[in-house]
């Protein structure tokens, strides 16, 4: 069952063509990698899918719904989440608050209820706080619970970013270079976590990465982008054997 279908997607910035007629299908429950050299259009694809940028043409269907050109928060409310290459945490708030903010969409009390601290607000806050604690625990973030997110080492910030994205309970999570800037050990742990997310929580993962080795271990299928176009798609092994891919990309392998 195709969860995310990208069809003939084109994204342009001024005169520059970032993505050209890209078509890609991501099945529900799979771990799908997207790789490509710098300038291949990977970020533009993520930005178009998440609504940060409006595509010039083409269609993006998520769970049978057309989402191309919709506002980002609307798209995310359909169950599409993302993490950021440069993390984008709420730096001066604690790790707890960062992940707590991730639950925004799942809390339903209104402004008046908040202002008057009605019972349903207290209830919702108590429940959500508990869920945050569990999430933090699952990611080993409990020791950092009160630390301002901006003060943490980069690797831990990336974990917070993932935990926060998960709080929104996405069906599909787009991870933008999740292991860049991490040490070997951290990257391995991140991979284990991501695999766990997919297996145990049934979240479809789309991992955009430079690092071919990471994707080899993690992804079930990989799509290779080059200069805004889809070069090839298949299992990691197939991609590593594909001459066009090798030519275009693996020359400067990570």
């Amino acid at each position, binding site marked *: 069952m195709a969860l995310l279908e990208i069809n003939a997607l084109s994204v342009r*910035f001024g005169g520059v063509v970032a993505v050209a007629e890209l078509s890609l299908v991501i099945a529900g429950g799979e771990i799908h990698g997207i790789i490509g050299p710098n300038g291949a259009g990977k970020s533009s694809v993520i930005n178009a899918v998440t609504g*940060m*940028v409006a595509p010039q043409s083409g269609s993006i269907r998520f769970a049978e719904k057309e989402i191309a050109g919709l506002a980002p928060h609307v798209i995310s409310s359909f169950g599409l989440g993302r993490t950021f290459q440069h993390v984008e945490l709420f730096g001066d708030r604690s790790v707890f608050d960062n992940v707590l903010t991730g639950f925004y969409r799942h809390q339903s009390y209104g402004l008046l209820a908040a202002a008057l601290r009605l019972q349903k607000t207290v209830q919702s806050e108590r429940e959500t706080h508990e869920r945050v604690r569990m999430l933090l625990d699952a990611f080993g973030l409990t020791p950092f619970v009160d630390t301002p997110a901006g003060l943490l080492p980069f690797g831990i910030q990336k974990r917070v970013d993932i935990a926060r994205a998960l709080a929104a309970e996405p069906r599909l999570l787009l991870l933008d270079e999740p292991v860049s800037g991490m040490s070997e050990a951290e990257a391995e742990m991140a991979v284990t976590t991501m695999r766990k997310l997919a297996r145990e929580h049934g979240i479809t993962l789309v991992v955009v990465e430079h690092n071919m080795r990471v994707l080899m271990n993690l992804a079930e299928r990989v799509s290779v982008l080059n200069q805004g176009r889809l070069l090839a798609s298949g299992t990691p092994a197939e991609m590593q054997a594909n001459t066009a891919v090798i030519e275009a990309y693996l020359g400067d392998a990570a």
Partner: protein
Amino acid sequence: MTLRIILQLALSGLSIGSIYALVGLALVLPFKASGIVNFAQGEIVTLGAYLALILSGLGLPYLAVVPLVLLGAAAFGMVTERLLIRPIVNQPEFTLVIVTFAIGFIIKAAIRLHWQDNTFSIDAPFVGPPLALGALRLNPAYLVFIFCTLVVVAALIVFFGYTKFGKAMRATALDPIAAKLMGIRIGSVFSAAWALSSMLGAFVGLLLGPVIGINPEIGHLILKGLVAAVIGGFSSLGGAVAGGLMLGLLETYAGAFFGATFKNLVPFGVLILLLLLRPQGLVGGTSARRV
């Protein structure tokens, strides 16, 4: 509605517009250099006028006062930038806004401490009876405003277009890190931008003082300068000049045809409309990001 009246109004409009243009320029310069809007700019205009008052009081003729005031203002600008602005450049926006307001507040308070709210006058060679040109009556001060603005604009064009330091300033405005890597002393560029903008502000004070009288409220002019700068998208010096002139003309004609109320409403109406509909100004590019 005769041609004569239209032309008179045009002259009026252009001359007050020149003043707005100069203030607008003074606002855009430090913004391009360090990304800061100097809300003390109005008080710098006032400061220029009062410095002229002091020097005049010492017996110096107007033409001798001018360069001295400009030098004093330049020094003021450099010192302010170095001591007060540079340390806090990385603070959140409000802090920066309030700091420049506070500086302006201190200037005005100091002035009022000594001179209270009285209005003073000084002599200047361009204050005199209207000149006759055919059927037109031209206030010589108006002509001087326009002429001086043209000279200033020409000087700035030469400076930014053809001198080494001017080009260094443009480079720094575009990309401070690249400029630094190329060996440009960006600290000097920032100081120079503030010195230049203070000089422009003080120059306005020198021009206006003899004509409208010297009192602490001169600084209210900054609002018009802001509108002029916004019309130019706050990024273009030429735009600020065009903006100031346009504003001057709009205001003058609106006042003549629709009365004083409209005259007051024009600048803010224009400001709001522009900001909401075309924030990049009437002169400027487009941006793509949507949030």
